[in-house]
Each structure stands twice: as C-alpha cells, then as structure tokens.
C-alpha cells in the first residue's frame, strides 16, 4: 500500500496543470483581495491629527493645557495609550500660519489672554479629513476648557472643595456613558474575512485530486484502471492509499495558501492558527471524499469533470461565497432547508471559518468541524459502495 500511496502522490503532484491551478487559485485570489482590501484596515485606523501649537507665554500660563497636549501627542503619549495629536510647536501666530502653508497640518492652537484655547483652520489648505480632524481637536479643547473653567470657579467660590478626594477624582477622570465592546473575537478586519472566504474557496476545489486518483483505479474508465484492477491485490488496498494521497496533496496545497496569506501578507488569525489548520485539514478531507464519490460514479470522465466544476460552483453559491446576494441566498436556504445546508461541505467550511472570525468560543466552530467529519464519513461509505464492484458487464 505504501508504494501505491507514494505513486499516487507523485502522479498528482506531477499533473502540473491541475496542481498549478490548485495552488495558483488561492494565491491569486488572496493577492487580489490583499491588493483591493489591504488598505481598508489601514484606512479605518485612527491616525494622529497633525497640529501646530503656538507655545507662547499665554499657552504656558494655562493650567494643565500643555500637560494634556503632551500626554495626547504622538512622541510623548504614555505606553499603551492612543496618540491623538502629532504636535509641532512654534513660538508665534505668524510661524503657525507659515507652518500651515508649508506642511500638512489641520490647524493650529492658540491661547488668548483669558487662558481660553482656540483652534484655527485655514480653509485654503483644507482637505477631505480636515473637518473630522478639526472636530477631534475641538472636542479635546472643549473638554479641557470645561474642566478648567469648573476648577477656576470652584477655586474662587469655595477652595475647601479641593480637600475632598472623591470630588478631585471625579474632576480628573473622564466620564464615559457608553461601553466599548468588541463584537468579534479578533480586532475587526475586513480583509481577514475575505481571506477566510478565499481559503474556503480553495478547499472546495480540492475535489479534483481525489477525482483523478479514483478514476485511475477504475477498470471501466481507463486502460490503466483496468490493468490495476486485474492485479493481485484487493481494490481496498489500492483505494485506501490513493484517497490518503489525495488528501495529503490537497492539504499540502492548502498549507501553501495558508502560509502565503500568513507570511506574505502578514495576516493575523488572532492566535487561532491551529483551528484554521484543523479547518483546512478536515475541509480537505470532506472534499476529498466528495471527489472520490463523484469519481466512483458510473459515467464518463468528461461528465465527472463537469459535475465537479458544477458542484464546486453550486456548493459555493449556497455557502454564500459569491457576495451579499449569495449570503442572503445561503441564509435563506439554511432556514428553509437545514438538511441541505448541513450536507453542503462548502457551507460547513465557511461556517467553521466564520465561527473563528466572529466567536470567542469554539462551540460553533466544532459544530461545523463535526458536520464536515460526518459528511466525509457519508461520502466515504457512498464511494466505497460504488467502488466495491469488481466485475463489469462491459468496459
């Protein structure tokens, strides 16, 4: 059986067209996704607002403003905090205006004689982000001024209030009335979701290896199959290593795709890499037995290839892999025909990846993995029943 396994691996690996297509498909798809969506995460990331501060006597005379700006600025922010400003200091209004002319600053901050800060924007240099950035600066300055005014009023009316530690705590602590929660297990990344879809697509294509391997052992499909069927060993001893080899080659192809996504693009799977690899392994197993079943059907090779291509598209459609329309269709099918959804290996592979993307726990993930194992078992039994025949009415 060992040499049959090795021989099947060699024959599958040396079928350059099939192998190159199987490897190239996920790589090209992932590259396209990366090219189109790689900047998406970056675009959503908070970038420090570039501002100019007029660092004059009025600014230095304020209570706490220089310290606050420093604490929120890029090069001086405390470790673990998010920088809001990328601050440049100048000593006069004129220098600040010149900086706006020369650089890509949103605006500049000045402090008037009363200690109130103001943010100046020059419309001539405004860009598409100026409005948002100016709002951020305004919110920070407003919050400062509100707190500074309150502290000033308290000092004038009743300085003894500052002896109350609880009051001081409330004054210096930012009060937030909303709670930030993450709805995904990992930091939201649109490109990761698409990478998962690309990997799922690639797994579905792994039917082709088992199809080719099984065709080569059937007497009624090729002279080679007939010769192998006449040999002095049982069909099971030929079939088992051939299917095992198909799985190994299919999983190897997936490892190439996974490594490309992970290392070439630096994609993070949020520490769930073992689960991703398990999905690829079990997904390829299910598709291998699906391919073996198609390969065992008593029809022509051309018809089998046609069925494989059609099946890949059909299963992918009902796995929601063709965009929002297909996702709606897949969900509708899952609601109205749950058994069909359960028996769709493409959907189960997709569900496993979605579970890794959306859920902290592994319950949904293992449900999909179990479904895939069940499908693999069903197709194994079906293909064995079809292939157990040893004699034919005609060849």
């Amino acid at each position, binding site marked *: 059986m060992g040499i049959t396994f090795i021989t099947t691996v060699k024959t599958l690996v040396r079928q350059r067209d099939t192998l190159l297509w199987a490897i190239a498909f996920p790589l090209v798809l992932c590259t396209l996704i990366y090219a189109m969506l790689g900047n998406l995460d970056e675009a959503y990331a908070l970038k420090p607002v570039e501002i100019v501060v007029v660092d004059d006597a009025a600014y230095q005379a304020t209570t706490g403003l220089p310290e606050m700006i420093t604490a929120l600025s890029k090069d001086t922010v405390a470790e673990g905090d998010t920088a809001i400003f990328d601050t440049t200091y100048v000593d006069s209004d004129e220098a600040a205006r010149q900086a706006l002319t020369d650089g890509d600053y949103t605006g500049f901050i000045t402090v008037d004689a009363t200690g109130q800060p103001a943010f100046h924007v020059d419309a001539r240099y405004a860009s598409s982000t100026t409005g948002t950035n100016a709002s951020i600066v305004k919110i920070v300055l407003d919050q400062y001024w509100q707190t500074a005014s309150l502290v000033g009023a308290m000092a004038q009316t009743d300085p003894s209030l500052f002896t109350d530690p609880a009051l001081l705590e409330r004054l210096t602590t930012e009060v937030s009335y909303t709670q930030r929660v993450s709805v995904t297990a990992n930091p939201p990344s649109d490109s990761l979701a698409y990478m998962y879809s690309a990997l799922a697509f690639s797994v579905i294509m792994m039917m082709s290896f088992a199809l080719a391997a099984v065709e080569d052992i059937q007497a009624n499909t090729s*002279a080679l199959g007939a*010769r*192998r069927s006449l*040999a*002095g060993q049982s069909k099971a001893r030929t079939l088992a290593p051939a299917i095992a080899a198909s799985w190994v080659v299919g999983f190897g192809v997936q490892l190439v795709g996974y490594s490309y996504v992970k290392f070439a693009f630096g994609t993070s799977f949020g520490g769930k890499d073992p689960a991703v690899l398990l999905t690829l392994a079990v997904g390829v197993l299910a598709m291998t037995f699906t391919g073996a079943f198609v390969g065992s059907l008593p029809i022509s090779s051309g018809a089998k290839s046609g069925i494989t291509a059609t099946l890949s598209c059909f299963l992918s459609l009902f796995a929601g892999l063709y965009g929002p329309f297909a996702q709606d269709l897949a969900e509708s099918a899952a609601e109205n025909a749950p058994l069909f959804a359960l028996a769709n290996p493409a959907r189960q592979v997709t569900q496993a990846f979605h579970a890794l993307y959306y859920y902290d726990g592994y319950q949904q993930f293992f449900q999909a993995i179990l479904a895939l194992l069940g499908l693999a078992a069903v197709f194994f039994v079906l293909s064995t029943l079809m292939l157990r025949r040893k004699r034919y009415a005609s060849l």
Partner: protein
Amino acid sequence: MGVVEIHDLTKRYKELVALDHFNLSIEKGEVFGLLGPNGSGKTTAINCMLQLLTYDRGTIELFGETMSPTRYDLKRRIGIVPQNMAVFDTLSVYENIDYFCSLYVSDANRRKALVEEAIDFVGLGDYRKFRPRKLSGGLARRLNIACGIAHKPELIFFDEPTVAVDPQSRNAILEGIQRLNQEGSTVLYTSHYMEEVEQICTRIMILDHGQQLALGTNSELKGLVDIGEKVEIELATPDQSVVAAVQALPHVTGVSLEGDVLKLTCLRGARGVGEILDLLHGSGLTYGRVYSEPPTLNDVFLAITGKELRD
C-alpha cells in the same frame, strides 16, 4: 490438467453474443494464439478469464482452480499486457515498472532486482528515467510489456501487443515473447496479424463472432484447406484466353487475371508452377516475374468464413 480450462463460456452484450459457448484449453509451456478479426471476442475472452467482465454462463479454471474476482492468489501468477497503453504518463519507465511489479511483489529488494531484469529484457536500459510520452511508439509498447512481465508470471496474456508498432520493434517483441516462453511462461497471444501468430504460436485458435472456427497447429490449420500453393505470374502480353486454358489444368483450383498478373491457386501435392509455365510457353506467351507461396492462415480464414481476416 491445463493451465487454462474454459468450458461453455457465453458472454452477451445485450443482443450481441460476444462469446458463444466458447471452449479453450491451454497446456503449460504453450504459446497459444487466438487469431481473429477485430470484434471477434479475443479481448472479451481474456477479460472474462481475468474476472473483469461478468459472463452469462460457463466455467473458467486457471492453474486447475476455479477463477473468481477475489482469487488474488491466482491473479498473482498472471501477467497482463493489454492492447492499449496502460501506464502512468507522469511516472518514469523505472517508476512505472516498479509500481506494477509492486502489485504482485511486496519485497522491495526482490522487486528491485525484478525491475532491473525487466528493463534489460525489453531493452529500455537507456530510457529508465524517461516518461512514456518521451518514448517512441515501439519503446512505449516495450514499457507496456515490461509492466506486465516484471513479476515473472507463470501465465501471460498478450492482447495484441504489436498494434501500431514499427517492424523492428515488432520483431523485438515477438522474440521477447518466445524467450519468456523458453524461460517457462505459458503465453496466450491474441492478434489479428496472422504472420505473427504463425511465427510464434505452438497452437492456434481461429475465432470469429465469439465462436471457435478452427483449432490446431499452424500446419494442422493449413491442412484444413485444399490449397497447395498460390502462384502469381506477371505476363508480358496479358491475354484473357489464357485464363480458360490454365483453369483446364487438373491441379488448378482457381484462376484470375488482374491487370497483367495471372493469379491462381493449386491443389496440395500437385506439380504446380512447372506445368503452368509449360502451358504458357506452349501458348507463345512470355512472362516476367513468377511468385509462389504456400497457403496462409488468411486462406484458412477465407476458406472457412468466405471473407478476409482483415475485412
């Protein structure tokens, strides 16, 4: 007890009777030829013997034991050289032979020696790393043979192994089959090339429409028809009147004038050519090339079925 014993084998493809109460007995050490036109049932007979095809009735015994699909012990004693190329396109010559040998021989060391021996036997020593597509038609056929004989089977089925092969490779293949036979293998050889069957087979069965038409040695089969020799005479001045004169000779069984060539057949044991040439000379006819040959298996087939073997 023969190596192959088939009794009353009948195989139908729907309305078509491919084998009609077919009987066959092959003794150990024979090179047995199954001769018949395409579609006569030769390959079907082999596939039934090897249990690849179902059949409607009959019994098949190989090596004195009843054959069945799971008699792997019997299958391991058999070698197959199929009509069509049946090798892996993506494996080298060595890898192909090694793989097919492994289906019969599990011991790696023994297999290595057998593979080398098979490569030497078919003369592919310089091509062991070549893939089949890089081989010429003749060399590819030799690979096909090597894959079937590497495990040194006791009984080898050669199913038209020389189809589409150049004369040089054909001779090499036929010589190789005779050597295998000399080394102890029993051979069942199917072909529709009568010359090959005549050349290497110890006994021959002529088959058509799934029925045995004749069985015997080469000379026994030729003895079934009353032809001594076939004569062709190239006439310098063709004359239709000579046909009747030659036809009147008592030992001439058939005569025709095709262009300037007078074609005739003579009874076995008669003087033949001499009398005919005397007649032509006496008639004042001059002739050029004279060609005489003994009857062939095609003549036997023609006499029995009324059609040429390759029709």
